[in-house]
């Protein structure tokens, strides 16, 4: 991607796209037919019919005479992209930041989210851990898509909102989970438009959380290993994108989630087996009216844990 420059746009803007994301109205204006098509596919399930409403955020993408694409938000330059894929990256990156600023009530997690019968699960992990690939595979197992990248969680209600942009993968999934012909190959990334996925839940409502999985494609252990609440909280804090905008620097929010929602570590190198395990946990959680966590009360003094 090239740095931001002062290259003049080649022609007038003639394409627009209206989105509604987490209550925010977003307007994308674009003068490039290919980029307009990519943006429309990428945000297909976030499109809004309220085209007459004043936007909260307004993005411009203009083709420059040197072939680059200048991207700006509300007249603030965001950069000049080398191609349509880079331009999409610039828009998405800024949009995610702006949503975090505009919805400080939500805890934004770097995590994928899916639902099963209305109950949501999160797939968290560092970049490249396999969140998107596992998400794509779980869709073949009957779960519905909410997001593959950013999951906005309401800490009080313990529920997660959808951010159903196109599912984005850095590499092709393993055998057994082939990509459909509608996949957009943007060079560095593969994008599956959300409206073309087998199951997607684009309702603008919050879905109650049932389980959190911390995935790692380096691990071949496809067993959901239950984590302590402390470990879940610590792992959640690491993937929280706006922790500092919450009370007590976000510690209260992650603690509240971790103490109430079971968390698991799972290896996804054996993808089909891992999906079966995840699906099993979510299915059991969705069928339960209430989940009671914790063990029996112990009357005797507890044993000393070896510290640190």
């Amino acid at each position, binding site marked *: 991607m090239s740095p931001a420059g002062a290259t003049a746009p080649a022609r007038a803007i003639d394409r627009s796209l209206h989105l509604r994301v987490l209550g925010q109205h977003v307007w994308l204006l674009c003068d490039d037919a290919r980029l307009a098509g990519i943006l429309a596919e990428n945000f297909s399930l976030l499109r809004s019919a309220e085209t007459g409403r004043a936007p909260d955020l307004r993005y411009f993408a203009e083709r420059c005479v040197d072939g680059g694409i200048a991207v700006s938000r509300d007249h603030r330059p965001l950069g000049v992209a080398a191609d349509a894929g880079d331009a999409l990256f610039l828009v998405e990156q800024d949009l995610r930041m702006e949503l975090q600023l505009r919805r400080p009530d939500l805890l934004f997690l770097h995590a994928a989210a899916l639902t099963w019968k209305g109950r949501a699960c999160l797939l968290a992990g560092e970049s490249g851990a396999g969140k998107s690939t596992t998400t794509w595979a779980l869709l073949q197992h009957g779960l519905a898509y909410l997001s593959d990248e950013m999951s906005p969680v309401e800490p009080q209600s313990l529920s997660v909102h959808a951010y159903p942009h196109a599912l984005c993968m850095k590499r092709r999934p393993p055998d057994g989970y082939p990509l459909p012909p509608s996949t957009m190959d943007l060079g560095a990334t593969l994008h599956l438009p959300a409206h073309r996925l087998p199951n997607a839940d684009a309702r603008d409502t919050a879905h109650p959380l049932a389980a959190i999985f911390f995935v790692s494609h380096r691990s071949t252990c496809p067993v959901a290993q239950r984590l302590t609440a402390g470990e879940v909280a610590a792992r959640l804090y690491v993937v929280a994108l706006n922790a500092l905008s919450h009370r007590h620097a976000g510690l209260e929010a992650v603690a509240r989630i*971790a103490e109430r929602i079971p968390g698991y570590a799972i290896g996804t190198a054996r993808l089909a087996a891992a999906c079966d395990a995840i699906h099993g946990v979510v299915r059991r959680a969705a069928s339960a009216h209430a989940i009671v966590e914790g063990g029996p009360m112990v009357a005797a003094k507890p044993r000393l844990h070896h510290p640190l």
Partner: protein
Amino acid sequence: MLGHIKRDDRLMLKQVGDEALLLDIEHNLLHRLNATAGFIWSHCDTLTSPEALAHGLAGQYDVDEQIALRDVMHTLDRMRALHLLSSDSTQS
């Protein structure tokens, strides 16, 4: 050996179940303490000697006070290395 002990009040502690998270924003670090370490850190402002902390631990947990003292000493060393204690904490 640590004499007077004082926790670093710039750190933020949050109890999670029987563990605790200790956030060090200045060093961009998050520490996860088990119940014993959480007890030591959260009490080291009031029980300001290793012996007092060990006595407190022995009252809370099913552990011999001498064994507790050994663990307290080890834990305080680790906490000092991780900048979890105030620089006011003195060594004897």
